[in-house]
Structures are given as structure tokens and as C-alpha cells.
């Protein structure tokens, strides 16, 4: 084949990422601290004021029901995307996207993709608010588990068909050795995780199910070793180091994912109270980040969640408001397949976890989110604090709430948030997998089973249709 033809093929697969790398190499140099503390906040605030969006956060109505307001946020996010671009940490420079490029790429962004093989394949499609289309649920987030629990936990979670794909958990040791970041242990972890995961899925009868990869590796080493072991198409986790920032780690992964025909997921949380300021400017930053993912790294599954810096979660009023606004802005105005995570802070077996899940998942699903990955039991901070029940519960709420009106979703959140918001800063950590499940039989202890069924009933009483998990009910 002539080089010219090879180049054409390469341009088609890798042109975007190559272009972004070139821009990073020659882009405007900016000191990161200045970007974080002056440039970014200043421009976001200016744009919010220009579009009449300051002080629009209504914490008494955490799920936005004003479509016109969401559309204004979209316009603000578009402007922020053009004026800011992404900051490349490795080159300390800006990757800008001009108006023509943003417009062109926006029209080309895919509205669906497939992940998984054979019977395990699922089509992931863009949604709009309250459209009733069943969204995709992926479990769990990359919560740390003892390596001997990896297979039983994974098997337990994916034994319910409510879970479409698998992402976590993550390992912190590999065959007894510590999984040190940025070392060859990570390279091995990518390989090891493949073997553990495929065995778990085989045991659960879910051979061929799709995966979001690679969970147990923080840098690119684990991804580069592990990702290509899976039959494609899969979802490639090419996360950003921070919102509106990118680095060589992300680009390394994007090249591999694009070559193998993977679907890139890229995001990083925006923080209310952090560099993006209040809920309004945080929502704008989230929208801008999501708009730039496809043009800059070819991500077909963007989704920067909005967290509240005070408790590193997003099931409180400000978090729900910002996230619902950022979600609706995109889902009302684009074909982007949007995902955002819901970050619970309470741990397994505490009622608070279920309340947070109801709020976060209902707001997300009604607002048109196509895809989510959950749970984040105990904020992801307690090792082994994760069981299949949290995953099944979140899946049921997320899928069940897809057809709810925004007004109904808001009513549900207004009722449930007061039940836990006083505990967000100091949440209960709950119990571990070993405490709550028989690891051999993969069945919950009777008390936890009863609690799960009671909370399912509670969600239904609020008006959320709860699909059966196919395991317990």
C-alpha cells in the first residue's frame, strides 16, 4: 500500500489527536496557576454575566425544569469552549478549537455506538430529557477491593442484566505485590485485571459483555498493556487529569483506542467551590469540557460531573442543580451521548446511600443522561465498601426514571434530599462486602436483602418504576 493511502487511513483514525498534539506543542504558553486562578475563573464569570446566568441556581428546585434557561447555559458553554480550549499539562500550553472546527466536529459527533461482543453487545444512544429510552448502566466505579474479592464481587454485580457493562472495581495489589503508580506493576495490572474480569463475567454467564477499561491503572501503562487484550469494540477510559485539561497520558490512550476501534470516554469533574466557582459557572465549565472532548481527543462519550468541593459528592442541592443544568444543556441541544457519574458519599447498608442514589440517578436520568457508571459507595474512599446491591439499586433507579418528567424528578429530589443533606459533610461509611454478603454463595445477609427490598419499595412509592434485577427480584 502506498504511504499516501496509509496516511489517509491514519488521518481518518488519528487525525484529531495528532492535530491536538501539534496544537499542544505550539500553543500559547500559560502558567498553570494563572490558568486555574485567573484565566479560567475570570472568563467563566464574564460569560455567565453576559448570558444572564449568575445567581440562577435555585437550590429549592434542584432539578432544573426551565428549558430556555438550559439553552442559555448551552450557549454560554459553547462560548467558554471557544474562548478557553483545553490546557495541556505536559506542554503548559493551550489547545484551542476555533468556531469552524467546533461547529464541524459538533455536527459529526456520533449519536450512538456499540460496545461488547455477540449477545453481550449493547447499543449506546444519545438521549433527550424524559424521553423514556432506557439508558445504559455500568458498574461499578473503580473502588478499591482486595484482590481475592475481585472475582466474587464482579460476578455478583454483573449477574444482574440491569448492569450493561463493567468498569471497576480496582486492585491495589497484584498477586500480593503493591500496585505502585507509574511502575511496571501497573503494566502487569492491566493484564491481570483482564484475566480476573473475564473469569468473573464467564461465571456470571455474561461472556462478551462490554467493558470500560482499564480500571486498575492510573497512568497509561495499565491501559496500554490491558486494553488490547479485549475483543473490540469496548469503551476506553481516557480520562482527563482535570476538567478543561489534558495530558500525554490521555493522548497515549486515545491513539491505542482509536487504532483498535474503541469508544473513547473522557472527562474530569468540575468542582463547585473550586476553580470553576459557583454552581452556575461550574455548569458552564462542565458543558464546555463536554463540547471539546470530541474535537480534541475523539471522545464519543464525554461527561464531566459537577461535584461540590465541600464534600466531594454531587447529591446535595447545588451539585444536583449544576449537574442537571449541565446535562440538559447538552441533551436538549446536541446528539452527544452524555454520561456523568453520581457520587454518593454514604457507604453500603446505610439508608443514606439509597436516598443519595434516588436523588442522583433520578435527576440524571430525567435530564437525559444516556449512560452512567456507579456506584461510588462511601465516596470511593473505603476499601471493600462495595456490594452488588448498590449497583443493582442504582441501575434500577437510573433505568426506571428515564421517562419521568423533569417536574416529577424535581419533586422527588425535593422530598428526598432533606432526608440526608445534613450528613453530607460527615457521612456514614457503611459496611464492607464481607460484612454484607456471603462471599461463597454471593447472597446478601437477610438484613441487607430486606433493606434493599424496602428501599426499592420506597423508590416505587415516589413514582419511580423499578425494573427487576433478575437476581433477588
Amino acid at each position: 500500500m502506498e504511504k499516501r493511502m496509509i496516511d489517509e487511513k491514519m488521518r481518518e483514525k488519528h487525525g484529531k489527536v495528532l492535530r491536538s498534539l501539534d496544537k499542544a506543542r505550539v500553543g500559547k504558553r500559560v502558567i498553570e496557576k494563572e490558568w486555574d486562578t485567573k484565566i479560567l475563573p475570570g472568563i467563566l464569570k464574564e460569560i455567565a454575566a453576559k448570558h444572564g446566568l449568575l445567581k440562577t441556581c435555585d437550590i429549592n428546585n434542584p432539578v432544573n425544569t426551565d428549558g430556555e434557561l438550559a439553552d442559555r447555559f448551552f450557549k454560554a458553554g459553547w462560548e467558554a469552549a471557544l474562548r478557553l480550549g483545553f490546557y495541556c499539562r505536559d506542554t503548559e500550553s493551550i489547545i484551542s478549537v476555533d468556531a469552524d472546527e467546533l461547529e464541524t466536529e459538533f455536527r459529526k459527533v456520533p449519536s450512538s455506538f456499540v460496545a461488547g461482543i455477540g449477545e453481550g453487545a449493547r447499543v449506546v444512544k444519545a438521549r433527550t430529557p424524559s424521553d423514556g429510552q432506557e439508558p445504559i448502566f455500568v458498574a461499578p466505579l473503580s473502588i478499591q477491593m482486595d484482590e481475592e474479592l475481585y472475582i466474587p464481587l464482579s460476578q455478583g454485580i454483573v449477574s444482574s442484566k440491569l448492569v450493561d457493562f463493567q468498569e471497576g472495581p480496582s486492585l491495589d495489589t497484584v498477586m500480593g505485590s503493591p500496585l505502585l503508580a507509574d511502575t511496571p506493576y501497573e503494566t502487569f495490572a492491566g493484564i491481570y485485571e483482564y484475566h480476573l474480569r473475564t473469569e468473573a463475567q464467564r461465571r456470571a454467564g455474561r461472556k462478551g459483555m462490554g467493558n470500560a477499561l482499564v480500571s486498575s491503572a492510573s497512568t497509561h501503562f495499565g491501559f496500554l498493556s490491558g486494553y488490547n487484550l479485549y475483543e473490540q469494540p469496548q469503551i476506553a477510559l481516557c480520562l482527563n487529569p482535570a476538567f478543561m485539561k489534558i495530558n500525554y497520558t490521555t493522548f497515549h490512550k486515545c491513539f491505542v483506542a482509536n487504532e483498535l476501534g474503541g469508544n473513547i470516554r473522557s472527562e474530569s469533574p468540575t468542582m463547585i467551590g473550586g476553580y470553576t466557582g459557583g454552581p452556575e459557572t461550574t455548569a458552564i465549565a462542565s458543558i464546555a469540557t463536554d463540547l471539546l472532548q470530541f474535537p480534541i481527543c475523539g471522545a464519543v462519550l464525554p461527561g464531566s460531573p459537577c461535584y461540590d468541593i465541600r464534600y466531594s459528592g454531587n447529591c446535595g442541592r447545588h451539585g444536583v442543580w449544576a449537574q442537571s443544568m449541565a446535562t440538559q444543556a447538552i441533551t436538549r441541544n446536541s446528539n452527544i451521548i452524555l454520561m456523568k457519574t453520581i457520587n454518593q458519599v454514604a457507604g453500603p447498608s446505610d439508608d443514606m446511600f439509597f436516598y443519595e442514589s434516588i436523588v442522583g440517578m433520578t435527576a440524571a436520568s430525567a435530564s437525559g443522561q444516556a449512560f452512567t457508571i456507579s456506584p461510588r459507595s462511601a465516596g470511593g474512599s473505603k476499601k471493600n465498601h462495595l456490594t452488588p446491591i448498590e449497583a443493582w439499586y442504582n441501575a434500577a433507579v437510573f433505568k426506571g426514571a428515564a421517562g419521568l418528567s423533569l417536574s416529577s424528578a424535581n419533586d422527588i429530589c425535593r422530598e428526598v434530599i432533606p432526608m440526608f443533606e445534613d450528613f453530607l459533610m460527615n457521612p456514614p461509611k457503611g459496611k464492607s462486602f464481607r460484612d454484607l454478603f456471603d462471599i461463597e454463595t454471593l447472597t446478601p445477609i437477610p438484613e441487607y436483602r430486606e433493606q434493599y427490598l424496602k428501599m426499592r419499595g420506597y423508590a416505587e412509592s415516589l413514582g419511580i418504576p423499578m425494573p427487576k434485577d433478575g437476581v433477588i427480584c
Partner: protein
Amino acid sequence: MSSILHEIEEAIYNGEDEVVGDLVQKALDSGIAPEEIIAKGGVAGLDRLGEDFNNLEVFLPELMIGGDCMKLLIEKVKPYLSAEEDAYIGKVVIGCAKGDLHDIGKSLVATQLAVHGFEVIDLGVDVHTNRFIDTAEKENADIIAVSALLTTSQYYMEELIKRLTEEGIRDKYRIAVGGGPISAEYAKKIGADGYSRTASMAVPMAKRLMKIEPTKELVVEQD
């Protein structure tokens, strides 16, 4: 007198670094004690910032800029402090452990410590263990504070403590750890001196740490 102190408070609150130096000099020239300038000018402004941050009226950038202004204030008054007084409660070298790029929690801790009287040297993210040690040695730090959100990076906290022990300098530094996967149990297991569950708890934890010698007990702030 009170109006100059109020102006200093406002300059700190508003992050007006270009006027802080002149206002502080004006206050010193008018005979106001340096401790009063720090407390009623600088700390007053920082306290307001802290309260407004908790209420989401100001955000991390304002806190960081206020902290930078406070540094300028302290540098200005330092020569006027008596030999017994120290402008700072202690000196902290802080960073994210190797492999970890999540800086916002670390930046929040660094800022909170800076606005509450600590001299902070922020090494940023993905910090090699040796760099923590070399900087602490060079700066004669009191506390080395390591943050990790990733489980694959938290191992470097234990590595830091082991390295300090092997080099015979463990007793020189108080080691504080924190971040998502970190717990008081983990801090105890690796032989750290301090742990705080949240960024705001890092301040009382660090203040308590300064009252004890390294390796004597584990200081925990989590409730």
C-alpha cells in the same frame, strides 16, 4: 488606626496584592504592632474568606489569592517581629504523591494551611518521594504533607516514611497524610503522624501536630 487595619482586611479579602505591601508599611509607620497587623488585618480578612468559602460565596481561586496576599503581608512584617515571635506557626512541604495528578484537594489543604498561619511550600502533583525529602531538608520544614486520591499512589506515603527512617531523619519531620482512600487506620499502619478527613480539618490537625514531636503519637481530625 482601625481604618488602616480594616483596609488591610479588605485588601486580603479582595486579593489586592498590589496594595497590601503599601498598606502594611503605612500601618507599621503609624506604630501599629506587627502582631496586630497580622491578627486584625490579615487573619480578619482570611477568616471572612473562609466563612464565605463554606457558604459558596467565594471559591478556591479567591482563597488562594488571599493566601498569597497574606504571604506578602507576613514577609513585610517579619523584620519587625521580635526574636521570640514567629510569623508562621510552622512550615509545611505539601504535594500529591507520585503518579497522582489530582490536585484540587491538595490545593485546598495548602490554601487552608496558608491562610491559617502556616508557611507552605507546594510541590504540586506527581511528586517523587525524594523531592519531598530534599525540599523538606532544604527548607527545614516542620511537616511533610502528602495527598493521594489514587490507591496506586498511596503506597508512596509508606515509602516516604521508610526512606526517612532509613536515612536516619524520621524524627525531623511530622508526616501528615490525607486524600480519598486514606484513613486514620492507614495513617497509623504506615507510621504517619497526622491524618485529617477533610481539607478544613487539616488546619486543626496541623496545629496540633506542631505541639508534639514527630513519631510520638498519631493526630487525627475526622469528626
